[in-house]
């Protein structure tokens, strides 16, 4: 029983990082109605930059963020420029497929520059485990969950208290309406991209810190996990993305504990598929949250 609780807590805390990546990914969809499948690869490029710059020396979380963020922003802007130009208000599935092609390209660039299959992630996250009623909670997971909650709180404050946040909320309500009122479409896109990059980079650093490694598979894994999170939690609320992350972390941790890493991967895809297939039968609301054919983009 104790180990079940332990696994659940570890999974849910790690899920905060997945929730954050889902939030970053879903935020782009929510505001500008784009699904960028190269998202994970762009974040992974930032992680590889951290590994390259560190030279094997441990770096603080803030330093990792300072190195990874500009790389992720450049990669995301490149993907957006090619696949989703601002001038195009309607997005086609071809554009989504094109973003997948860019994932392939970015991953190849990264693996050519750093050809090893596995690199240790040089983050210095020295923390102390906390004991609660005989259950030891990993200090690094607590720190990661706390970081995620800080990011979410800052995002909420930004959206609620600033003029840019108000403009973003207007664009979420109606992209065309916001544009008619003089809110610059390209400015909205830029702010959205930056928010998505920050949330995604923090999430990617957290995931790399949990795994203590960076591999070329991380790009696809980050994208897929973000997709699972928004498929489960939707994109309409911040709370939804976090719940999606917690569910994913919970399932992943139990699948790994019970059956090992290979089954864990299998279980994630089964979860995603079952959720997508069963959700319309359980409730029609999910399709409303994430419509197949986006309309009213910013």
């Amino acid at each position, binding site marked *: 029983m104790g180990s079940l609780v332990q696994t659940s807590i570890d999974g849910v805390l790690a899920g905060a990082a997945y929730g954050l990546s889902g939030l970053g990914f879903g935020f782009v969809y929510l505001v500008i109605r784009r*699904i960028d499948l190269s998202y994970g690869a762009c974040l992974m490029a930032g992680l590889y930059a951290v590994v390259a710059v560190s030279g094997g020396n441990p770096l603080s979380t803030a330093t990792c963020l300072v190195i990874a963020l500009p790389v992720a922003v450049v990669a995301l802007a490149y993907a957006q420029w*090619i*696949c989703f*130009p601002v001038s195009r208000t309607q997005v*086609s*599935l*071809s*554009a*989504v*497929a*094109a*973003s*997948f*092609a*860019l994932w*392939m*390209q970015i991953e*190849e*660039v990264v693996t*050519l520059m750093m050809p090893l299959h596995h690199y240790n992630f040089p983050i210095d996250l020295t923390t102390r485990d906390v004991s609660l009623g005989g259950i030891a909670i990993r200090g690094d997971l607590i720190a990661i969950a706390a970081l995620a909650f800080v990011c979410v709180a800052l995002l909420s404050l930004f959206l609620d208290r600033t003029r840019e946040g108000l403009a973003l909320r207007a664009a979420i309500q109606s992209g065309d309406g916001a544009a008619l009122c003089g809110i610059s479409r390209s400015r909205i896109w830029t702010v959205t991209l930056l928010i998505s990059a920050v949330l995604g980079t923090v999430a990617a650093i957290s995931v790399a810190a949990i795994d203590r490694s960076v591999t070329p598979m991380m790009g*696809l894994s980050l994208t*897929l996990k973000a*997709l699972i999170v928004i*498929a489960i939690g939707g994109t309409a609320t911040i709370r939804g993305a976090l719940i999606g992350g917690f569910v994913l972390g919970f399932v992943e941790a139990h699948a790994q504990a019970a059956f090992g890493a*290979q*089954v864990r*991967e*299998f279980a994630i*895809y*089964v979860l*995603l*598929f079952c959720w*997508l*297939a069963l959700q*319309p*039968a359980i409730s029609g609301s999910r*399709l409303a949250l*994430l419509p*197949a*054919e*986006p309309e009213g983009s910013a």
Partner: protein
Amino acid sequence: MNDYILTLVGNAALLSMLAVSIYLMVLVGELSFGHQGFFGIGAYSAALVTSGYDFNPVFGIGAAIVAGAISGAALAILTVPLRGLMFLLSTLAFGEMVRTGLGLWYFDPDGPGPKSGPAGVEGYSGLRFIFDSGLGLAGATAFVVLALALVMIGVMLMERTQWGARVRAVGQNHLLAEAIGLRVTFIKIAVITLSAALAAFSGAMFAFFTTFIEPANFSVMLGIHALAYELIGGIGHVMAVFIGVGLDVIVLQAVHGLAEYRMIIFGGCIALLLRYRPDGLLDVPTVLAIKKRLRGKKRC
């Protein structure tokens, strides 16, 4: 022809066949990131029937087609309410589910002995068709190219029938198709099943073309490659996949000395092309314009 060219032609033909299976999906208005899953199901089914149980390759192909059709029908039925992006995601999840599932599959059909079975992530070795049949690489390549030609002819003939027109109507506007009395759900399920069976058939060909298969062969990269052939070529005509194949082969040849940069160049080409031609080089208006011009020349 040397072995390099033969392998290149054989692999291009296999990928083209997979791209044709995705073309069928495009006809009903959907894209797929998961056809590598059907391809893998077909490859493992054919391998198990022929190398695991020593049946004739014809039975191997039959088993692959049946397994592909069943899994395709199951996917189609389970995802009936999903369209567009959500359907695309479900196919991606399905493809990855198959790949990771094959990595968990250990099976020994006959205990220790010459017969072979899948061994998880270590793959499926001991495939002997290419040697046992006496075809050799040249014969196997010719076999695959012939199969592709037959598939192409079959799809073109299907498109000329009333059924083909109904499928296109569903793909163009499913609500309008439903309004004029077409059984949209049935047509969609039937076409996805057919498409999955074709992808599994090409997977069976792949298993016969090689001596070893592993789950990593059926990664999302394979599906993207085939989808890229289809999207680059265009959704206007089945033969358009050859444009995608041609571009890939040209890129491969042009940067032969820089083979490690191939995916970077190819990925960039796909993305740029899709930016300016979202429906590919041979989209429906282009095909109609070409047909009109050809008809005009004939009259003259």
